[in-house]
């Protein structure tokens, strides 16, 4: 490096660079895969929307010139409640907007850099075939604009990101997004489309430490992020921001991983991907639980939502989901589908200690409620929630001739258990019922028996706590 350069020298060297950088000649026009000829029709202004929304599917049968306008902005935003961070962004959001074009389109990319930026920024589009993915052609100082065109020769889901030095820092600050290049025939119709990009963030403070956080270089180098986030903010896809679907609908997710460091084990808790375009390419896998999304890579997944409720989007490197923020939701609305998904009962396994008893309940309604609680917590584990039992294993309590023939016999059975062959509703059972006398109070046993006698098509009747107490006392005196 010379110390002092005269105006003439500088100007001359810049001219020389311009000449050296120029391609030697225009490429010969040949049959190039994905090239469907020059752009036709009027140029199309791409209508960009904020994530997690995506531009509408393309219904076009010719290659066009598509104008995409991006602006790099350095903005302070929340990454979690009360936690602020200076994001470096495309169009003010992390990720930047999803760009959607058709294979063979000529993309005219206008990259502006906000005058308030610290840094020059640029863009490396993984959908570009050519040096740097356009990075060299788009270096843009603050207050400037660059224009770059490329032909989208390959279909797929691709990452774009800033590639200005120091690259890991530009990416760690949120400068990435997706560009979807649809095949000429378009994508199969689905009911909902959404856009999710995972990124890892390195803050000076600990997880959830409030206030304006600075970028922490040592954590970046150690690849130990403070946050792993979908769409740049904890809660960006949960609660009021959750993605939505309806029972019977299909959902397509364009999923990227900006990195800079982590690979995502992308999974939807409660969903199976009907199809996965592996790594965003054309190879399709089916019936997938978890798919890898490489840093600087993407995938396109489709799933059906046949059952109502909440599905969870996670990085199934699961610490990141529950300790670092990588959690989203798809809320599926619609009628229950018990034939597909039905909670029958839950309670402790046989022999497990039941919660210690509440005092005996005198009021009839309270007695019934208490009886139902005991039944649900204990009895239903074997006799089932509908009291129908399990054939060959546990006898039914519903419409039970054995129970109704002698309700008071049931007191001793609950207190002391029962083993040996019995016949219920003409079916023989020979299993062991454990004694419940040590874990249930007199009142609880009375209540649960009364509840069972008055439900499940039994004949009715009631058992009192005093009767249970008497049986218990009689057992002791034997």
């Amino acid at each position, binding site marked *: 490096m010379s110390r002092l350069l005269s105006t003439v020298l500088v100007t001359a060297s810049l001219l020389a660079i311009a000449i050296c950088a120029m391609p030697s000649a225009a490429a010969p026009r040949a049959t190039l895969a994905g090239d469907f000829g020059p752009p036709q029709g009027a140029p199309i202004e791409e209508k960009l929307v904020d994530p997690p929304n995506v531009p509408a599917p393309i219904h076009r049968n010719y290659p066009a010139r598509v104008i995409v306008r991006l602006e790099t902005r350095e903005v302070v935003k929340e990454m979690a409640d009360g936690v602020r961070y200076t994001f470096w962004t495309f169009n003010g959001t992390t990720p930047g907007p999803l760009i959607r074009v058709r294979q063979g389109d000529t993309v005219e990319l206008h990259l502006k850099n906000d005058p308030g930026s610290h840094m020059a920024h640029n863009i490396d589009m993984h959908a570009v075939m050519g040096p740097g993915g356009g*990075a060299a052609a788009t270096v843009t100082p603050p207050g400037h604009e660059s224009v770059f065109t490329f032909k989208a020769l390959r279909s797929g889901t691709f990452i774009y990101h800033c590639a200005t030095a120091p690259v890991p820092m530009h990416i760690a600050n949120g400068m990435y997004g997706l560009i979807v290049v649809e095949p000429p025939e378009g994508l199969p119709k689905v009911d909902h489309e959404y856009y999710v990009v995972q990124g890892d963030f390195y803050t000076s403070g600990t997880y959830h430490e409030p206030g304006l956080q600075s970028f922490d270089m040592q954590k970046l180098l150690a690849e130990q992020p403070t946050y792993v986030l979908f769409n740049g903010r904890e809660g960006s896809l949960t609660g009021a921001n959750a993605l939505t679907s309806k029972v019977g609908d299909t959902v397509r997710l364009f999923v990227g991983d900006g990195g800079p460091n982590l690979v995502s084990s992308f999974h939807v808790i409660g969903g199976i991907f009907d199809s996965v375009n592996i790594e965003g390419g054309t190879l399709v896998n089916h019936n997938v639980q978890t798919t890898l999304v490489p840093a600087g890579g993407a995938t396109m997944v489709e799933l059906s939502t046949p059952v109502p409720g909440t599905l969870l989007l996670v990085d199934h490197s699961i610490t990141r989901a529950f300790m670092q923020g990588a959690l989203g939701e798809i809320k599926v609305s619609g009628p229950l589908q018990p034939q597909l998904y039905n909670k029958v009962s839950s309670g402790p396994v046989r022999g497990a200690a039941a919660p210690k008893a509440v005092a005996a309940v005198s009021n009839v309604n309270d007695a019934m409620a208490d009886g139902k609680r005991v039944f649900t917590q204990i009895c239903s584990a074997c006799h089932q929630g509908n009291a129908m039992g399990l054939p060959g294993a546990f006898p039914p309590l519903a419409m039970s001739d054995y129970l109704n023939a002698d309700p008071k016999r049931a007191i001793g059975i609950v207190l002391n258990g029962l083993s040996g062959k019995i016949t219920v509703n003409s079916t023989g059972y020979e299993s062991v019922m454990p004694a419940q006398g040590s874990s249930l109070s007199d009142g609880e046993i009375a209540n649960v028996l009364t509840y069972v006698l008055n439900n499940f098509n039994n004949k009715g009747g009631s058992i009192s706590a005093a009767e249970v107490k008497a049986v218990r006392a009689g057992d002791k005196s034997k």
Partner: protein
Amino acid sequence: MKPIRMAGLLMLLAIAPAVIAADYVTIPAGQFVSALAIDGSTSRIAMPSFAMRTEPVTQADYLAFVAAHPEWRRGRVSPLLAGPQYLAAWQGPLTPGPAVPARQPVTEVSWFAARAFCAGEQARLPSWYEWEYVAAADATRRDARGDPARNQALLSSILAGSGNRPGTIGRHRANFYGVRDINRLLWEWTGDYAAMFPNADARVAGTGATLALCGGSALAFADKNQYALIMRVAALTALEPADDAPRVGFRCVRDIHGE
């Protein structure tokens, strides 16, 4: 390291009596290793002694300059030497206005303009190595670059400066040499910045042969931990010499003869 009063003190005072003459300090000779690998080599560089302005050139300094040199006023300067953003924050060609405090570093000045300013006080823009040699210091050490805490503090300080304007001079301690605000407030033009060519997208070193043919230097980052410095190089090398950026200012140096 006594401040050397600039030679043309009386002359400048005659033109703009409100301006306080700039302080320069002597930077002693020494050796150091650049964080940049020029043409693929890192080597110990012997730095001769020189004098450096203790502070970046301020808005007040620059107002005095354009007052004395009408050819550098906004509206008069050739667009080849200063682009449309030249002094864009100023209200008028000789009126910085309330948005531009006098003690703030001047920015939105082109490399050509910075060079002319320095010549006007019998000085020049520093070489990259001169700038880097001085900027390697912290308050107590000549070369503090190996200290991760120092590197993180610089980075955090730079990132905390938001908005379109650089901060105010003098909020931080002077460094080992008595130089202020060399790392945190703004990017500073160097005389030879335009001859530094990282590969155009700055991720890998350019191919030496091509760049040598074109008269430049292939540049790579030998010390990849100097993020604040890498940001600076990326920001500067994206600029044309006539560009005027809101965060780019400068300071001047002088050769010391006979030492």
